[in-house]
């Protein structure tokens, strides 16, 4: 194994451009598993630990910018994130155990592109953007477009995730984060739901954002459901209609962790109960 240890972002991007086959190393929580399985033997590893600037979290009135190397623990501690992005905080608090939360980074979580990434449904409903950097320059990709499949992203050779930008949302009428993973901790999710709902003064739905994780190869926003409920009253009738539309927005998968049938039924129940909740 060859280890590259850049001291700055510029140096990292230059080194990565020179050896685009290198394995970027952030918190290492996924890397260690691959390494133990012998998959990192003879690879070039680009250690990003020296990029202090990429660990920063910064908040303005309109945007919260989370450096790619901010850990799940950093995110939980940040005052502005706690105030404005509580679903992300809750998700970070349920990733692995404390050791994983202390090491694992948000950028690493996204780059690894597991279908079960716990932070993805919150980032999807918060309309986050991912900032990508390479020696050639920088670009921004909407969060929903960053994944190309299981363990695949749209990152190009030599490109690293630099930061995640989240617009500060208006305070929602209600919000939901739910991770369903069978056991109480250290669980890989079978399904996850994140939801934000704004009601108009007349009690009808002004806006719904709802995302499901672990259901399909990539995180999904429920576009049909979100469009269908707009302007309607959140009653049992609407909940039934919305639940019936879930299958149009996401085709759940069977895998060794759960079944498509169960994932769909749970998602429908979580959506329906979110829509009809009292508060």
């Amino acid at each position, binding site marked *: 194994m060859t280890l590259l240890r850049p001291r700055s972002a510029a140096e990292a991007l230059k080194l990565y451009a020179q050896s685009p086959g290198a394995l970027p190393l952030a918190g290492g929580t996924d890397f260690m598993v691959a390494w133990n399985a012998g998959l990192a033997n003879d690879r070039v590893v680009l250690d990003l630990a020296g990029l202090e600037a990429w660990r920063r979290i910064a908040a303005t009135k309109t945007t919260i910018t989370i450096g790619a190397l901010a850990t799940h623990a950093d995110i939980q501690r940040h005052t502005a994130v706690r105030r404005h992005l509580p679903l992300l905080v809750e998700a970070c608090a349920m990733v692995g155990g404390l050791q994983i939360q202390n090491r694992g980074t948000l950028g690493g979580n996204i780059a690894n592109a597991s279908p079960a990434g716990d932070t993805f449904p919150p980032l999807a409903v918060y309309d986050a953007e991912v900032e990508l950097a390479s020696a050639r320059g920088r670009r921004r990709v909407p969060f929903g477009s960053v994944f190309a499949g299981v363990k695949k992203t749209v990152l190009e050779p030599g490109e690293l995730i630099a930061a995640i930008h989240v617009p500060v949302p208006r305070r929602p009428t209600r919000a939901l984060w739910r991770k369903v993973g*069978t*056991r*109480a*901790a250290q*669980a890989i999710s079978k399904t996850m739901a994140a939801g934000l709902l704004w009601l108009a003064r007349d009690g009808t739905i002004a806006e719904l954002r709802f995302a499901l994780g672990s259901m399909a190869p990539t995180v999904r926003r429920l576009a049909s459901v979100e469009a269908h409920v707009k302007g309607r009253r959140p009653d049992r009738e609407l909940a039934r209609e919305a639940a019936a539309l879930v299958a149009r927005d996401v085709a759940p998968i069977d895998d060794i962790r*759960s*079944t498509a049938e169960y994932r769909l039924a*749970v998602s429908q129940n979580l959506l329906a109960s979110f829509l009809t909740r009292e508060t």
Partner: protein
Amino acid sequence: MAHVVGTSARRKEGPEKLSGHARYVDDYRIPGCLHGVTVRAPIARGRILGIARDPAFDWDGVVIATAEDIPGPNVVTLIEPDQPLLAAGEVRHAQEPVALVAHADRSRAYQAAAHLKVEYESLQPVIDPAQSEQVFKSFLIERGDVVAGLAAGDLVVEGTYTVPHQEHAYIENNAAAAWFEADGTLVVLASMQCPYYVHKALKPLFDLPAHKVRIVQAVTGGGFGGKEEYPNMIAGHAALLAKKAGRPVKIVYDRHEDMLATTKRHPARIRHRTAVKRDGTLVAQDVDVLMDGGAYLTLSPVVLSRGTLHATGPYDCPNVRIRSRVVATHTPPNGAFRGFGAPQTLFAAELHMERIAEAIGADPVALRRKNLVREGSTLAVGQVLRESVGALQALDECAKRSGFRDKRREYARWNWRKDQPTWKGIGLAVVHHGSGFTGSGETHLASRAAVALTREGAIVVLAASTEFGQGTNTMFSQVTADTLGLPYDWITVETPDTSKVPDSGPTVASRTCMVVGRLVRQAALDLKAALVAEHGRVPHTRAHLREAALTLCGDAAERRFEREYEKPSGMAWDDATYRGDAYEAYSYAAVAVDLEIDKATWEVTVHRVTSVQDIGTTVNPLLAEGQVIGGTAQALGYALLESPVYKDGVMLNAQLTNYVIPTSLDTPEMDVAFVPAPYSNGPFGAKGVGELPMDGPPPAVAAAVHDATGLWITDLPILPERLARAERERKAPRNRK
């Protein structure tokens, strides 16, 4: 002198483990040691056409061993000589060892294993036990007339139950190191439960006499049965590589390999037909058991035996028939696992009792009270229970402590309201578990244990019974201390090493306390008698004990008092008819599980487990409670979480990320209590505790799930997916003709 039996004496090896000084196999730095890796078959069944080295790979420093290198017969000795140490000619299960490689560098050894090319011709495997035509063992146990009995009840209740494989998930994976001394003695240092099993297996493999094979137990990080017979295999592999290399070799499995290749609990399908009277009296029990043994016989006949003997539950029924068989499939051999066949059949028996209760509209506690064994009861094998039967006391205490009847009423009101977000339920089970080997097993084992007084005045317990977390060392020390009337701290326990300790039999079957503990007590009584004869009393100061030791030892370094197993008087067992006293004594437990199920996700949260047991005298209450809590957590995993996924005979979720065992957050509050009914032949009245906690929770969980939802989930594990499907099918039943 204060008595130490009955107190929570501090765990002997506790400080060593807590401070990190305990050394496990992988902690030993052995000079010149190579790291061994196993080349395994990727297919469930096939012929080996050839083994070739990849010419592109650098083989410098790599040692390779195949079946041809084995000096003796290619057999892992256990019950039948059917399992090879390395597959030769034919492969009978995926992950079967085919060859071994070793290298000084661990990573290099793994690479070499990947470059050893084995060519196979695939054959059609038999994976489904119901399709198997090879029966390893079958039993038929009858009492009374089951056919007449089935016709004589007011109604017959039928049910079919299935249980899956279960992984032991000990914290330390299987590991062994081996080397040859200058005089040709083979030494094995391993993580294991049964040093003399390994001793017996290695002698013929290497064609060595008993005194040229020395097996030493390293500190062992858990076993649960998973280190009963499997160490024979990994120790044989390490020794074979050591012989070929002329250097020490260590093999330490990683979690993935350990889960893929080593033994699991036997999956089983159990059918019940029970005739019962309206008043709840059992009239006839007809039970059929099918277990999946895997590719080789290993311990399957004995697992089946215990499963069969526990298949009716702890009830006295006049007409019983139990038919059972364990068959071969092309899957990795299943083996010993805490409970050893009983958790499988007791799940079926106890959940079936719940269905009987529902069928006749009986209270589940009252139904059990009516039929439970008590002193004087007769079991299906004809055994009359003469003493130490605490089943009823355990049930009554459990029902009281758990508030069973009040909770049933309270939850019925909660569940009646359709707008509640959850269902709540409480369920109960009563189980028995025989202590020690079945039938004449202990007589055949002829176990020995000793207590020695050294010239320096040290008192040493010598037994092959291993400590692997359950408390062997502490229990032996307590028994010895109280027998001699000396302080607990004066007693030491020798490391199980076949060159130092006698063969006390395997550390299995809830036998260490009751059977080996009794031998230790008898040996200590002999030492006491010798001291009294010599000095009029047992010396109560170190100085006096040293003086006494000098006279008792004479010219020898120690004076050893050894005892061999003797069958308690009045016990009789016939191996041919399989009738008689199946076990010396039984322990009993009543378990209540209180849980809640989320209606949106079908996730089950266990809030509280009440576990009341009769294990005879509780030698060490804290360790006993630890056994109950740990066993209950393991049983809750079996009941609710642990779902091994197999395809073509290969486990697909052989990682702890995807094979979900409970964490501390999934482990509920537990109320553990003891209602001792002492056993006169146990040391200070003790019976076994190790396996019992595995038996009761699964049927109690299933009963609670039924109480909550009205659904009978008869297949373990009770996953949310299974509950969701059962509920959907209840709402929209499929058309059946």
